[in-house]
């Protein structure tokens, strides 16, 4: 089970621009770092982060090994209608994680 922490306001007024924040537990191993045996630790990163609002993509990010471990992302979105904001992370070794929040737009 992936450990994700998502933050969004629970209720917002229609048309308001809100901040969405997401944290996920992930090593973001760069592939450039020597391990105990002197050999490089294989790369293991999240490559793609996407957010959808009721199924419509609102934000996408492509990450490189230079994104810090346990990636944190914050961005904004205009609240149009109540529904579910879904966050998805995918990466090396078939990594895939999801999290979502419900937002009520009044």
């Amino acid at each position, binding site marked *: 089970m992936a450990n994700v922490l998502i933050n969004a306001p629970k209720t917002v007024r229609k048309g308001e621009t809100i901040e969405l924040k997401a944290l996920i537990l992930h090593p*973001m191993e*760069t592939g*450039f770092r020597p391990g105990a045996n002197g050999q490089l630790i294989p790369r293991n990163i999240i490559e793609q982060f996407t957010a959808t609002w009721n199924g*419509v993509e*609102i934000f996408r990010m492509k990450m490189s090994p*230079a*994104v810090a471990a346990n990636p944190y992302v*914050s961005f*904004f979105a205009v609240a149009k209608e109540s529904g579910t904001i879904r966050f998805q992370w995918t990466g090396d070794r078939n990594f895939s994680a999801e999290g979502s929040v419900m937002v009520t737009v009044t």
Partner: protein
Amino acid sequence: MMQPLPTRRAFVAGSLLVTVLPFVSAGATPDAMTAAIRDVVGEAQIRPGRVTLDIPPLVENGNAVPVTIRVESPMTEADHVRAIHVFNEKNPQPHVFNAWLGPRNGKAVVATRIKLADAQKVVAVAETSRGEFWSASADVIVTIAACTEDVK
């Protein structure tokens, strides 16, 4: 940060009095960064302005450096920021991240945390729906953590 090599991880006593060895592994260079930027923007002109790159000038540890990129834009259908690309000079690779946005974002502001292997320049380029490219850059000094543990 692409973890420093063992020489750099040596205790602060070393770093206090001995010149820190340069990052040895093949890394990005100003040239590699320029090439990477060209890869993304093509031949288009990149103009300074409209982009604010908020990053601390001096960081205590390069493993997680907070960055916020803000772009002045009405974020309408007709005129919005389509993407924000961030590059660096000296990590092993010049790419940091690319973020794709649209009018739905309301504000062209993205924040995250990045690794910086060494003191270096970071560049943010914003691509608008009108095909313009705006940019900002910042120099960051990364100090070396003290009392680290050897990677074992």
